[in-house]
């Protein structure tokens, strides 16, 4: 008998899972809350470390999921799910009742809402934007200030909502450092007259080709890196942003007027994931992400038999890691469908 798996979330992890499952002849219902799949990929112009277009990855994933075994349900969320013997019954917001043999949760992450760090003035001052806003500007091929001028000096603030007890997030989001470096390069490339400054606590370049990109930012693009956490931003009378930071390596406080401030928003457990944790009795940790059964060899396995995790609903990951994690989830599910054990 053919098996049926429900995949919740149509971002990178969900699409990869759906594609791989369908390849081995398993039927998939892919549930996506938005009108189209792709998740955060849709909001990003180019990807680190090689600055390829995110649409290329989207194309790959779309190609994977254009298969008859996959039934795509967009604008759909899950209202309830029950486990009865070896089956799951899932109720959607659109009133559909689905039954499945297993569930893969791929609800991903939400970007940290930068307005919560009020001291940086997002939503208060003009020209304080987030990394996602900047990507949108690159997509629209237009990097301008709210008054229409081209920014001459741009500051990039690392760790916005990450590694921050005040934001309730003790963890490192892992991707923001390299995103900062990527965007700094792109800004310099797009606006050759501009000066770009990155304000960091630690440069966490722990991925393949990240450190090389960091070096390129210094060597080729002249990006300045200043070690210190920005404590606050304020607006000056000439509509510039005055930031305060300690240049910890010089051992002195530093102030600087900038035209634009880009906040590197961290990753948080998605709202959809939180809701699912509640209705499905899925365990979450202190960081609010789903808790896997084992950190080393059970990172796809949940506390509920037949429910598995894929991607950033368990912790911050880049796309490479997300795809690997999604494939690993597929292996777990196939094992479960054969043996009835997680």
């Amino acid at each position, binding site marked *: 008998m053919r098996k049926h798996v429900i995949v919740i979330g149509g971002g990178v992890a969900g699409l990869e899972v759906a594609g791989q499952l369908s390849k081995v002849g398993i039927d998939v219902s892919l549930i996506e809350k938005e009108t189209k799949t792709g998740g955060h990929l849709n909001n990003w112009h180019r990807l680190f470390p090689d600055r390829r277009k995110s649409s290329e990855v989207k194309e790959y994933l779309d190609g994977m999921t254009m298969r008859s075994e996959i039934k795509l349900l967009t604008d759909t969320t899950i209202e309830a799910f029950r486990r009865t013997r070896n089956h799951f019954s899932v109720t959607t917001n659109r009133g559909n009742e689905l039954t499945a043999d297993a569930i893969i949760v791929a609800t991903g992450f939400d970007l940290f809402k930068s307005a919560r760090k009020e*001291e940086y003035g997002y939503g208060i001052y003009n020209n304080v934007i987030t990394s996602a806003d900047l990507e949108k500007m690159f997509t629209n091929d237009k990097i301008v200030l709210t008054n229409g001028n081209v920014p001459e000096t741009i500051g990039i603030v690392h760790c916005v909502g990450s590694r921050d007890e*005040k934001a309730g997030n003790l963890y490192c989001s892992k991707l923001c450092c390299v995103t900062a470096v990527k965007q700094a390069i792109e800004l310099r490339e797009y606006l050759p007259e501009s000066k770009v400054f990155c304000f960091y606590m630690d440069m966490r370049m722990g991925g393949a080709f990240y450190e090389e990109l960091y070096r390129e930012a210094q060597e080729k693009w002249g990006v300045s890196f200043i070690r210190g956490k*920005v404590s*606050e931003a304020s607006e000056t009378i000439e509509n510039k942003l005055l930031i305060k930071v300690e240049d*910890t390596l010089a051992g002195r*406080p530093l102030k600087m007027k900038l035209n634009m401030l880009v906040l590197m928003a961290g990753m948080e457990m998605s709202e959809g994931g939180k809701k699912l944790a509640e209705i499905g009795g899925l365990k979450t940790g202190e960081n609010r992400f789903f808790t896997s059964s084992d950190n080393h060899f059970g990172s796809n396995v949940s506390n509920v038999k037949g429910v598995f995790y894929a991607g950033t609903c368990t912790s911050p990951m880049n796309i490479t890691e997300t795809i690997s994690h999604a494939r690993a989830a597929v292996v777990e599910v196939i094992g479960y469908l054969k043996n009835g054990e997680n």
Partner: protein
Amino acid sequence: MDKFGFSISKGRQIDYDFNNRRLAEYIFEKEPSFRLCIECGGCSATCTTANFTAFSLRELNILIKRGENDQVRNNLRKCMLCGKCTLVCPRGVNTRNIVVLAKNALQKYDEYEI
């Protein structure tokens, strides 16, 4: 013997073995969040004193931990205890309390010469 005016200057190195780190031990005990500092400098960035005088709470933290107590003593009195540093700290260090504790400890030390 002729004297040529040479003298041996005190080294610049932090003499970790020689330095007395009792002050740090005392603060670790009374304010365990003192251990959490990652030297990001958020405190110094927001500090009013640091913007006008040679004072850095971040530096003070590390000097206490290294037992460079003479520098600590000279700097401590500059803090006005406004507590803005505590509001900024991403690690949840009670920075203001560290200054209070250090002040108390050094005062006792000076009174009783212990």
